[in-house]
């Protein structure tokens, strides 16, 4: 994951004695500031999970306080359903849609130009980079879109709140798309905007259903369960599993882990370590090497996000061990390593094609067409069988294959790829 770091000395340096404080603060910052986790992030949850994971049969149905049984069951059900809509365009598909009427948002006068506005949480990692490119290209497809305004909150809640206020109060915005930075903090701003114009929320949610539609894929439970079930199938009973997580306290990631933990608890696999990597390849490599040497061997690697999967693979290579079954994500470098090194792997996805859907939804809403209240998109998985369909040569290492962007204008150059 990329992050655009911008440490700023907020306070004027005061006393030289603060030097020692500096050193500590830095160190603390190294681990603590590595995410934009919500303020209520339970830092110890990962550790608890780690310790209890090894003990079989305990709290099998309550892996973490983030675990929501109903939502878990729902997502697993959704994973098994066939979505409605064109199979070739998964970004237009929907799972179990409950359609809502949007006639009151119909723009007066057919053929009028549409001005779309988008408040983005930020573009601080490759997943969001690819997503934003998808969205901009989607907007280019529609001639009726006269203007597409994007405000980048740079990962800051306060900036996004003022961005949303600015866009909602702007007469030029016909509809507002929001990808919230954090859930709770952005809720009031979204509520306020809902009173002024049609709002479309996607990617992460807010605690209000005032938006016309909320667009997201199946979700974290589906993701985590797919990866864990793969390991349960591929790794011999009693095998040692290393679970790598980015950081604690982020709901999408917590749900992935809690679903995986449930699957591991039911299995005969032994989760020997649950480690946080901060999404940093160098740290991932160190963590995996340490785990290999501590446990003698590792028989399977589960990851809550595949951005550092290649680093994990290299850690096995560098220590002279065979790469065990591993889970990753649809990131280009991992798919390439998978193919080149003939890994036993699977890649559940959080597809970046979901960035196309809000634009489509906004246009439908402004035409007064019905859209789902909650637009659940499919969440395909890259497997051995379909790897070649998704792996496209010439794309940059941090590209996401599930971009649904292959036929968009500017592909592949705009996504950094070569013909």
């Amino acid at each position, binding site marked *: 994951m990329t992050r655009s770091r911008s440490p700023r000395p907020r306070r004027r340096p005061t006393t030289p004695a603060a030097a020692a404080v500096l*050193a500590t603060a830095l160190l603390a910052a190294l*681990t603590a500031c590595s995410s934009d986790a919500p303020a209520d992030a339970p830092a110890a949850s990962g550790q608890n999970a780690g310790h209890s994971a090894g003990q079989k049969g305990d709290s099998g149905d309550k892996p973490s306080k983030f675990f929501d049984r109903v939502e878990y069951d729902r997502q697993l059900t959704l994973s098994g359903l066939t979505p409605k809509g064109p199979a070739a365009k998964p970004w237009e598909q929907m799972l179990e849609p409950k359609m809502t009427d949007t006639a009151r948002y119909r723009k007066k006068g057919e053929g009028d130009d549409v001005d779309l506005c988008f408040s983005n949480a930020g573009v601080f990692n490759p997943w969001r980079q690819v997503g934003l490119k998808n969205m901009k290209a989607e907007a280019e497809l529609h001639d009726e879109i006269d203007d597409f305004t994007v405000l980048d909150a740079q990962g*800051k809640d306060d900036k996004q709140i003022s961005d949303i206020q600015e866009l909602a109060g702007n007469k030029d915005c016909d509809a507002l798309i929001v990808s919230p930075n954090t859930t709770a903090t952005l809720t009031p701003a979204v509520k306020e905007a809902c009173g002024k114009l049609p709002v479309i929320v996607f990617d992460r949610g807010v605690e209000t259903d005032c938006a016309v539609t909320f667009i997201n894929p199946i979700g974290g439970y589906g993701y985590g369960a797919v990866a864990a079930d793969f390991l349960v199938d591929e790794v011999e009973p009693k095998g040692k599993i290393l679970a790598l997580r980015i950081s604690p306290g982020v709901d999408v990631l917590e749900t992935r882990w809690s679903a995986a933990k449930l699957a591991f608890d039911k299995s005969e696999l032994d989760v020997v370590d649950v480690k946080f990597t901060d999404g940093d390849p160098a740290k991932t490599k160190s963590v995996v090497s340490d785990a290999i040497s501590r446990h003698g061997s590792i028989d399977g690697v589960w990851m809550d996000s595949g951005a550092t999967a290649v680093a994990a693979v290299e850690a096995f290579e560098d220590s002279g061990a065979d790469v065990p079954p591993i889970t990753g994500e649809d990131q280009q470098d991992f798919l390439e390593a998978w193919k080149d090194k003939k890994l036993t792997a699977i890649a559940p996805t959080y597809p970046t094609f979901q960035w196309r859907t809000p634009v489509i939804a906004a246009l439908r809403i402004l035409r007064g067409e019905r859209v789902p209240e909650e637009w659940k998109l499919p969440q395909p998985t890259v497997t051995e069988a379909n790897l070649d369909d998704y792996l496209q040569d010439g794309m940059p290492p941090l590209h996401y294959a599930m971009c649904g962007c292959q036929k968009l204008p500017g592909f592949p150059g705009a996504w950094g790829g070569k013909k």
Partner: protein
Amino acid sequence: MSTGTATNAAPERTTKAATAPYRALARTLGTGAPVYALLIVLLLALAATDPGFYEPDRFLAFVKRAAPLVILAAGQYLVIVCGEFDLSVGAIVTAGVVAAAEVYGTHPGAPWALMTAGLLLAGAAAGLLNGLITTVLRVPSFITTLGMMLILEGAVFYWTGGSPQGRLPEDFRRLGRDTAFGWLPWAVLACVVAGVLVALLTRSDFGRTLVATGDSERAAHLAGVRVRRVRVLAFVLSGVAAALAAVLVGGFSGVSAQAGRGYEFEAITAVVLGGVALGGGRGSVVAAMAGAFSLQALFTLLNLQGVSGALESTVQGVIVITAVGLGAADFSRLRRRGHPPGPPTAAPPAPATPSRTHREGHPHDPQP
């Protein structure tokens, strides 16, 4: 070093001779004594936690992992001991890795030696800029290098859009990943060579003027030291060290737009752990490098102990404060209190450079 004469003290001075070995030892270790103690404790703790830790392969792998930080700490020492700061090294590492990836993206056949040399040169250029801005324009180095860090990070982000496009070929990654003679990691070799060079450098005239400059800029100036030139050179060397670290980090973990994240702070922490006075004028580079090893040993130990998440930073914080506190304590002053008041002899070196920073939470989204 006067160590030899002290231990071979004449017999009639027995009372003094009894304490001489202690003093000699203390003088040799200097202000770094606490860090050596800490390092030993950490290495023993590692041995206790994981009996296999000292198998040659594993220990070398540990050193390999520490190598970039050790090199950065050596460079940072040069800057800190002459009274300045270099906060830009992490960004130089990131920029180096990304630049190499981008260049390889367009010129896949570029020879690795040329690429490495180019990076070292670019690192030197960034250091030169830091040094000139700090000394000629008299911008505090804290601000200069912070600005450089932001400029480089912004440039990398602008250039790559957050996802670097190229990839690093195997031969370029060899220095950070592979071994020489089948057992010695190249990174360890690079680390040892860089360490020895810097240690020799600090014992040269340049090293002494560097410390003198940090101790008292005015005194050094009056004594004929070209203060500006010395400082600029320190920044240049720090930039080169950062570029070398970039080669090692890029080799170790591959393309990443966050390769150098936090390295500037780790390097400063390592130097501080090594008992080097912030503000300059005191401390040894070997101790600073030992500080880097200690930090890496601490990280490894915490990992092996299964300390995770926020608790990890808490433990780190406690240990660092303790170590720095011990290292900064001026015990001789305590002893002097027992004596009748007199004119102050050697004032403890005052850390002159502002050193407090506030690191904001990364606007990093851990969600894919």
